[in-house]
């Protein structure tokens, strides 16, 4: 599903964000990427969403070779990947409902279907009754859950979640993890980055550790000691 072959990303000559990373993620796998800030986790995710281009190496996601990807096809690629951004990236001028609906509007879904689908997803992330709120009126945790709802509403084949528990209290953090596990069970490949030891240890999934732009360990059902 996700294949990285000796991928390197340098932003300028002095700093190398990722150094010859090779990673293979099977369909329906649940992979946790850990590492300190600045280790290169975010760069890795940005390469996968084609927000950045790799300096060298090969990236193939869902059968799409990123080197052969034309600009006009980038939106199509992004529609296949659900992303929960670390800073949420909600549209400030739109309500909770409209933010989630936006992900469906851009793929051309009809209004009736949108009205039917969005409430279900908002229910999953426990945001029922807040459909008409604006993002600024929500707490950090609520915004995070809107971001998750938006990422999963299209039932993507791949879900990338960048620190989705970062701003949450333990109870809500576990709710979020439960949602991720749930959609993984339904067949979505999940790539999760986190700092949270407890989350890593309890999930008992494959853990990829990145340090200074390199993968230093890749273990199945692993625990993590920061």
């Amino acid at each position, binding site marked *: 599903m996700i294949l990285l072959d000796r991928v390197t990303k340098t932003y300028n000559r002095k700093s190398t964000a990722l150094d010859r990373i090779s990673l293979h993620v099977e369909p329906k796998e649940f992979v946790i990427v850990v590492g300190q800030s600045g280790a290169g986790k975010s760069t890795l995710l940005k390469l996968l*969403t*084609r*927000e*950045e*281009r*790799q*300096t*060298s190496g090969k990236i193939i996601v869902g059968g799409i070779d990123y080197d052969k990807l034309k*600009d006009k096809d*980038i*939106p*199509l*690629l*992004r*529609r296949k990947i659900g*992303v929960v*951004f670390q800073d949420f*990236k*909600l*549209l*400030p*001028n739109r309500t909770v409902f409209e933010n989630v609906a*936006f*992900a469906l*509007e*851009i*793929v*051309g879904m*009809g*209004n009736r279907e949108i009205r039917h689908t969005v409430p279900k997803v908002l229910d999953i992330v426990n945001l029922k009754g807040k459909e008409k709120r604006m993002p600024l009126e929500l707490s950090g945790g609520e915004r995070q859950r809107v971001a998750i709802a*938006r990422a999963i509403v299209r039932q993507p084949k791949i879900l990338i979640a960048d620190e989705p528990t970062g701003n949450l209290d333990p109870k809500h953090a576990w709710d979020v993890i439960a949602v991720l596990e749930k959609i993984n069970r339904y067949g979505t490949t999940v790539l999760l980055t986190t700092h949270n030891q407890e989350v890593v240890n309890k999930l008992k999934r494959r853990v990829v550790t990145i340090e200074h732009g390199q993968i230093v360990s890749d273990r199945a059902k692993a625990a993590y000691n920061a």
Partner: protein
Amino acid sequence: MKRKLVTLSRIISTGAVNFVRNAWLAIAAMAVMVVTLSIVLFSLIANATFTNTIKTITDKIDISVYLKDEVGVAQRNKLITDIKKLPNVERVRFVSKDDALKKYIADHADSPELLAAVSQTDNPLPATIQIKPKDLNKLADIKSFLSKDDIVALQSDETSYSDNRKEAIDKITHSANILERAGVIAVVVFAVVTVLIIFNTIQMAIFNRRDELTIMRLLGASTSYIRGPFVVESIIYGALAAIISILLLHSMFVLWRSSLEATSLGLLDIGYAATYFRDNFWHFLLMQLGVGILIGAASSIVATRRYLKFKTKK
């Protein structure tokens, strides 16, 4: 097809909703557009008014050719025909000795001493050919024709386009030329400045919301779906600003006409300006709408472009 219609209606309704939700930004942007569009329209009207004023002055300028009393009808008619053939002559009017006298008497009805100098039997006034030129800048060709020896021989006096009068006419013509050119330049300058200011305003409004653009980009929205609502919003700005600017000028020329007349110190023929505005009202409305909508749409397309680019750098 149906999907395209859904998308189009979404783009339009999103643009309209954004317009309402960004009300303050919208008002600020529209205020700038109203002011600049109004200035351009006003300068256009002022220019037309000045041109009209100049024209009423220059219209009064003609060249009079005074004929000797002994010039016969055939000779006179031949001269008139020849003058009419000159390329710069708009029309020719013949004033006979009798007509000239009648006009003199009418003009000086309240000065008996001037009337005493003339009488029916002893008419000192010459018959006159009045030539109305097409272009005041090209009087020289008429003058050179009238200065030919055989034609000078028919004249009792030098033409009215000689000496001091010639100098005055040339000066008026020269000033009129400069004023007309200055008016056109002013309108063009205002128009260019307006385009730049409106473009800048829209660019700032979009810069304020660049995050939205990049977020939509990251979620996989197509270029037209992201840009569409911004274009719609800018078109609303442009259309409303155009209508408001027209209403502003309308109230200026119609409702506040008297105070405008008082403050313009007679520099501007407000009566003409108001009539000109009223006669061309629908033209102006269409023009302002076209300009506002066009500049709004074009600037929003250009301004969104940089935030929609994909990274190509490796």
